[in-house]
C-alpha cells in the first residue's frame, strides 16, 4: 500500500482532532441541557404534588372534597400541559383535569407516550382523614423531547460540517506548513544535479530540517571526496601506465630504426621485459585493490602466531638489510586470527618500505604488543620525518609525498601502502602512521584480538 502523503496525513489528523473536540463538546452540552430540563420538569411536578398534597391534607373528611375543587382547579387546572387525577382508595376519581388525555397514562412510572405526545409522570399516595388518596400527575414534555431531537440533528450536522471544514483547512495549513520542506527538496534536487561541490544553504531552513540538511551536505561531501579520489585514481592509473608504455614504445622504435647487433636487440628486449614486469605487477596490485574495494577479498581466519610470522618475514628481508648493515629487531608476541598469506603481504610492504627509507647502519624495530583494545603491530624506522599533512594520505593509491620523485625502487608504484591498508581493513583492523623527530612508525591495530 502506498503511504499517505504528509499533507494528507496532517489534514486527516487535524480533522480528527477538531471533530473529536467538537464531538466531546456536543455530547457534554447535550447531557447538560438534558439534565437541566429533567430537573426543571421534576421540580414542576414536585411543586404541584406538594401543593395539592397540602390542600388535600387540610381536609378533615373526604366528603368535604368538593369544597377544595375551586382551589385545586386554580392550582392544577390552569395548565394546558399538565394532566391530573386524584383517586380515592376505592378507585373513584375525585378530581381530574385533562382527564380525557390523562386517563390512560397516569399509571406506571417514567416517560411514556400517549395521544401523540410525550408525558413525564409522577404519582404519590397521601393520607387524607385516614384514607389513602393517590395523586397522579403527568407533564407534557413533548416540546423538550422535540428540542433534543432538533439539538441532536444540529449537533450532527455541525460535526459533519466542521469535519469537512477542518479537513480542508488542515490541508491548506499542512501545505503551507510543509512549504519549507518542498523548497528544500527542490534545492537538494537541483544541487545534486548540478555538481557535487555545491551545498544546500542551511541558514534559512527550519530547525527540524536543519539536521537533515546537514546530514545531506555531509553525504555530498563524502560523495565528492570519493568521487575526487576515484577520478584522481583513474588519472593516476593513466599516468602510471603511460610512462612505462611510452618507454617501451620509444625504446622499441629507436632500436628498430636501424640494423643492430643481436646483443643490442637482446638488451632492448630485456629492458622491455623489465618494464612489462612492472606493468604486470601494477595491474596485479590494482586488481587486488579493486577486489578489496568490492568486498571480494575474504581473509581466512586461522590462528596466527605473530612473532613466528614476523620472524619468517625478517628472515627473508634480513638479506637485503645485511647488505646495508641495517638491523631489524623484533620484540613481543601475540596471537591473532587472520589470513597468513595476506598478512605476509601487508607486513612485507611495510618492511620493504622501512628498508627503503632507513639510512645504512641503523635499526628497524618491529614490535608486537597486546593492549586493551587489541593487538598492535608496529614497524618503525629511522629516516626523514614525514610532514603532518601527508600522514593520512600515505595510504591513498599512487600517493607520493613528493609527486615529482619516484622514491627508491622504480617498481614502487605507490600501491604498497594502499594494499596494506586494504588487507588490514579486511581483517577489521586499523592502520596509521606516526612520524616525528626522525622516526617513522606504522602501527596496525587488530581490534578485539587478545
Amino acid at each position, binding site marked *: 500500500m502506498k503511504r499517505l502523503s504528509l499533507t494528507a496525513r496532517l489534514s486527516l489528523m487535524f480533522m480528527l482532532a477538531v471533530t473529536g473536540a467538537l464531538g466531546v463538546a456536543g455530547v457534554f452540552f447535550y447531557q447538560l441541557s438534558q439534565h437541566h430540563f429533567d430537573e426543571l420538569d421534576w421540580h414542576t411536578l414536585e411543586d404541584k404534588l406538594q401543593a395539592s398534597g397540602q390542600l388535600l391534607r387540610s381536609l378533615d373528611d373526604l366528603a368535604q372534597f368538593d369544597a377544595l375543587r375551586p382551589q385545586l382547579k386554580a392550582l392544577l387546572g390552569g395548565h394546558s400541559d399538565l394532566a391530573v387525577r386524584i383517586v380515592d382508595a376505592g378507585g373513584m376519581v375525585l378530581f381530574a383535569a385533562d382527564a380525557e388525555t390523562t386517563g390512560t397514562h397516569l399509571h406506571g412510572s417514567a416517560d411514556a407516550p400517549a395521544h401523540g405526545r410525550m408525558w413525564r409522570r409522577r404519582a404519590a399516595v397521601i393520607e387524607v382523614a385516614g384514607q389513602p388518596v393517590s395523586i397522579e400527575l403527568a407533564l407534557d414534555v413533548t416540546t423538550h423531547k422535540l428540542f433534543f431531537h432538533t439539538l441532536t440533528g444540529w449537533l450532527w450536522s455541525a460535526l459533519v460540517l466542521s469535519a469537512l471544514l477542518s479537513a480542508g483547512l488542515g490541508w491548506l495549513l499542512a501545505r503551507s506548513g510543509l512549504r519549507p520542506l518542498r523548497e528544500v527538496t527542490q534545492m537538494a534536487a537541483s544541487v545534486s544535479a548540478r555538481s557535487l561541490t555545491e551545498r544546500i544553504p542551511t541558514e534559512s531552513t527550519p530547525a527540524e530540517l536543519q539536521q537533515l540538511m546537514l546530514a545531506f551536505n555531509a553525504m555530498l561531501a563524502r560523495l565528492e571526496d570519493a568521487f575526487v579520489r576515484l577520478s584522481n585514481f583513474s588519472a593516476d592509473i593513466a599516468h602510471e601506465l603511460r610512462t612505462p608504455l611510452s618507454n617501451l614504445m620509444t625504446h622499441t622504435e629507436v632500436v628498430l630504426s636501424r640494423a643492430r647487433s643481436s646483443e643490442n636487440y637482446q638488451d632492448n628486449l630485456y629492458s622491455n621485459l623489465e618494464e612489462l*614486469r612492472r606493468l604486470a605487477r601494477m595491474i596485479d596490485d590494482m586488481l587486488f585493490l579493486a577486489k578489496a574495494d568490492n568486498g571480494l577479498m575474504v581473509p581466512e581466519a586461522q590462528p596466527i602466531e605473530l612473532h613466528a610470522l614476523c620472524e619468517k618475514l625478517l628472515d627473508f628481508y634480513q638479506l637485503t638489510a645485511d647488505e646495508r648493515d641495517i638491523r631489524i629487531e623484533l620484540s613481543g608476541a601475540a596471537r591473532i586470527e587472520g589470513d597468513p598469506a595476506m598478512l605476509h*603481504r601487508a607486513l612485507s610492504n611495510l618492511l620493504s618500505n622501512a628498508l627503503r627509507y632507513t639510512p645504512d647502519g641503523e635499526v628497524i624495530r618491529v614490535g608486537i604488543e597486546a593492549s586493551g583494545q587489541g593487538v598492535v603491530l608496529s614497524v618503525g624506522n629511522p629516516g626523514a620525518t614525514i610532514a603532518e599533512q601527508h600522514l593520512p594520505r600515505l595510504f591513498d593509491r599512487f600517493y607520493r609525498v613528493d609527486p615529482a620523485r619516484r622514491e627508491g625502487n622504480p617498481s614502487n608504484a605507490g600501491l604498497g601502502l594502499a594494499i596494506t591498508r586494504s588487507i588490514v581493513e579486511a581483517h577489521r583492523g586499523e592502520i596509521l602512521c606516526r612520524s616525528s623527530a626522525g622516526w617513522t612508525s606504522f602501527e596496525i591495530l587488530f581490534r578485539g584480538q587478545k
Partner: protein
Amino acid sequence: MKLLVAEDEPKTGTYLQQGLSEAGFTVDRATTGTDALQLILSAPYDLLILDVMMPGLDGWEVLRMVRAAGQDVPVLFLTARDRVEDRVKGLELGADDYLVKPFAFSELLARVRTLLRRGNAAALQTQLKVCNLEVDLLKRRAVRNGQRIDLTAKEFALLELLLRRRGEVLPKSLIASQVWDMNFDSDTNVIEVAIRRLRAKVDDGFEPKLIHTARGMGYMLDEPGAP
C-alpha cells in the same frame, strides 16, 4: 614430452608454442575447445594447457569431458580473470594448476616442469652432483672440488632447489615461494642478494661457473655448455 596448448588468442598461442618447443617439448596447438577435445581424445598428451575462455567448448568443459573419458593427464589452466570461484571450480574439476594472465613465461615453464615431474613421481635423490659440485641432502653437506662449503639453512635450501631443477630457469617468485614461503610478487632485491651470496660461496674461486642469471627471468644452475 608431448603438450597441447589450447588457446584462442593467436599471438599468445603462437608464442606459447614457440617457447615450449624451444624448451624441448613437442607442442600441438588448438584454437577452439572442440578441436582441443578432438586432439586429446585421438592421441594422448603428457600435459594440457587450457585457456578458460575459448569459443565452442570452454576450458572447463574440455576438462570435464577429458576426465569423463578417463584420462588422468595433468592440466594447467590459463585465465585472464582471477576469481576465487574460478579457482575453486577448476580445482573441483580436477585441474592441477592455475595461472593468471599476464604471467611470465619462465613461471609457466617452471610450473609445466613441476607438473610433468609430479606425473613421473621421480624418486627423490639424496645425492646430487653437477660437474664438480656434490651435495648430500641427508647430511646437508656441499662439497665443491673436494672442498667443503659452509652454507646457511636458506642457502642450502636455495642450492637444493637449483640442483633439483638444474637446467631450468627459476623465476624469482618461484624461488621466494619455495625457499622462503613468500607467495607474492614482491619488489625487493632479496633473491638477487641471496643468489649473489650463494654464488660467492659456490662459484667464486671454482671453475666452471654453475649458477647463471637469465636476465629479466630468473636463475639457473647447470654445467656450461649443457643444452
